[in-house]
């Protein structure tokens, strides 16, 4: 029954010291809120980058013309490319653990349709392109190997191009003119958003690479080769096999190509986001400490008054543990109230940032637990420890405390 009274006493004490209670809770709110917001935003940014990395496709290897290892980028990429469709066919034929191969052609061109025009990237690819890049077709279908063989005038277009040229929808089956050659739209790519480098990936038109080479670019060589390895485990082996195969085909000439996997490409971008996460975590840590110091200050400032209060309670018959329980209940109430409000504010702020940036919010349960536990421990320690000392005094000593 004394416990009920003690709860009552604790509630009265909190009400009696409204300002102190609010300030203490505020310390906890700031600490918890900041940690949750910062960690969520950091995680969100990281997840966003990871999603972008994934949007490159899974286990993708790219073969570029030019060598980074011998004599720098000889000839550059594309202009005087040394890669051929035969190279690509050799990879398809002779490399194991390969799920798909696509020789790539790239050119910018003006596209006309519907009385509108739009400058965009024209990609020449094989039908594997859609699976290699994990890029589904939203409506219609990918062009086929038959289309490649017959140098068909068919195209699959990105969302941005579709929106620009066909504001009213109904793109499928329509005709677009690329460099004045009509292509029939057979499919629309699903929206993919921006890539790691901030380019709109949906601003593109994909046609069979043969059609691109013969009708658009009119070049014998290809810009690059996309290869999809069977798994993350095989990716390095496949990379090596491709290098060996192409070197063999070069018959002792200098290496004039480079084989890179998507992980290497993504590393630069993820490094940035990791730096940001570390930075945000540091801010969060500082906030937590600042909040903790706030709680500590308030608790310590009121020690004299509270010691006298304890003296009065002991004098009228409170046991040491009644007093300790009261202080514990006070600390728990403040910590949980502050914790709940802090969580709400932290999550709210993350939502706001997510709304503005389009990042996913990922509230990490660990950060919630750590932040609340830390604040509660600080609150309990600095509220409880002086109280414990006071409760061990004789009542007369506690009353004399200055």
């Amino acid at each position, binding site marked *: 029954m004394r416990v009920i*009274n003690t709860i009552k006493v604790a509630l009265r004490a909190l009400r*009696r010291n409204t300002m102190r209670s609010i300030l203490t809770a505020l310390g906890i709110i700031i600490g918890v809120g900041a940690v949750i917001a910062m960690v969520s935003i950091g995680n969100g940014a990281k997840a966003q980058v990871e999603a972008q990395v994934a949007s490159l496709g899974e286990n993708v290897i790219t073969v570029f013309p030019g060598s980074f290892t011998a004599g720098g980028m000889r000839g550059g990429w594309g202009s005087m490319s040394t890669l051929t469709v035969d190279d690509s066919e050799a990879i398809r034929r002779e490399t194991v653990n390969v799920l798909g191969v696509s020789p790539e052609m790239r050119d910018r061109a003006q596209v006309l349709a519907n009385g509108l025009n739009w400058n965009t990237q024209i990609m020449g690819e094989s039908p594997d392109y859609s699976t290699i890049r994990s890029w589904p077709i939203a409506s219609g279908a990918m062009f086929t190997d038959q289309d490649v063989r017959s140098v068909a005038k068919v195209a699959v277009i990105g969302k941005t191009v579709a929106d620009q040229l066909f504001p009213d929808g109904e793109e499928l089956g329509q005709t677009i003119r690329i460099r004045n050659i009509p292509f029939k739209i057979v499919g629309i790519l699903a929206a993919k958003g921006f890539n790691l480098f901030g380019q709109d990936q949906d601003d593109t038109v994909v046609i069979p690479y043969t059609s691109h080479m013969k009708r658009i670019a009119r070049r014998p060589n290809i810009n690059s080769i996309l290869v999809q390895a069977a798994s993350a485990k095989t990716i390095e082996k496949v990379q090596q096999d491709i290098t060996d195969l192409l070197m063999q085909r070069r018959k002792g000439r200098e290496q004039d190509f480079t084989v890179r996997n998507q992980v290497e490409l993504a590393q630069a971008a993820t490094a940035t986001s990791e730096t940001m996460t570390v930075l945000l975590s540091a801010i969060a840590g500082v906030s937590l400490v600042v909040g903790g110091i706030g709680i500590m200050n308030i608790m310590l400032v009121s020690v004299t008054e509270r010691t006298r209060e304890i003296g009065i309670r002991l004098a*009228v018959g409170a046991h040491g543990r009644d007093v300790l329980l009261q202080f514990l209940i006070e600390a728990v109430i403040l910590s949980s109230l502050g914790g709940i409000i802090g969580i709400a504010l932290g999550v709210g702020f993350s939502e706001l940032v997510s709304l503005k940036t389009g990042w996913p919010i990922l509230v990490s349960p660990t950060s919630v637990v750590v932040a609340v536990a830390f604040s509660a421990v600080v609150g309990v320690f600095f509220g409880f420890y002086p109280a414990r000392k006071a409760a061990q005094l004789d009542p007369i000593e506690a009353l004399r405390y200055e």
Partner: protein
Amino acid sequence: MAPVVKIEEIHKIYDSGEIPVHAVRGVSLEIHRGEFVALMGASGSGKSTLMNLLGCLDRPTRGRYLLDDTDVSQLDRNELADIRNQKIGFVFQGFNLLARTTALENTELPMMYGQRHHSSREMRQRALHSLEIVGLSDRADHFPNQLSGGQQQRVAIARALANEPEILLADEPTGNLDSKTSVEVMGVFQKLNGQGITIVMVTHELDIARYCKRNLILRDGRLVRDELVQDCLQADEEMRKLREAEAAAKLTSA
């Protein structure tokens, strides 16, 4: 009948400072049920120290203290706390009320830690009754800083009475009060004493001591005089005289 308070050769030595202070040097004393004792003496003679020992707020360095036949020197902290809660009402020299806490809630305080459980309503009623005894029921919801010194003193008395103690210990209950309020407080004490409560109070003032039935004088930690008061003053009567004098003063000044 056994005395309520029986102390034998009690000593208190403070040795917290550089030189130990021997504040109480071998006091022996018996106080019986229904007594009304004034403890007097010069400043620093050890009155407060002795009161704190009697109130079980502090422990004697040497000597025996029997309260209601129990040897309190043998009790542990919690048992002492229960004795303070159940048997003793203590009125501090400096009031020691909880700040920002109403007179009513201050008065309820001892009941919070009582062995018997009271419902909130019961506690409130008993606290109100205590406040009524000291004539403060109309100030129940006031905070200490909204009360005069005398009113705060009376809240402290009401709190001391809340658990219906056998013995009321008051350290200079009239120390901060003007003479009229002092007489008022003495009136309250006489009324309580009339109802059978044993009272020990510290005072500096001789005329206040004359409201009590027995006077003790302490000098340098020793009891030097112990005498019964012959013709005790009656607070009611003195109050009437004071009012008459006041009225007369008004008449003359008018």
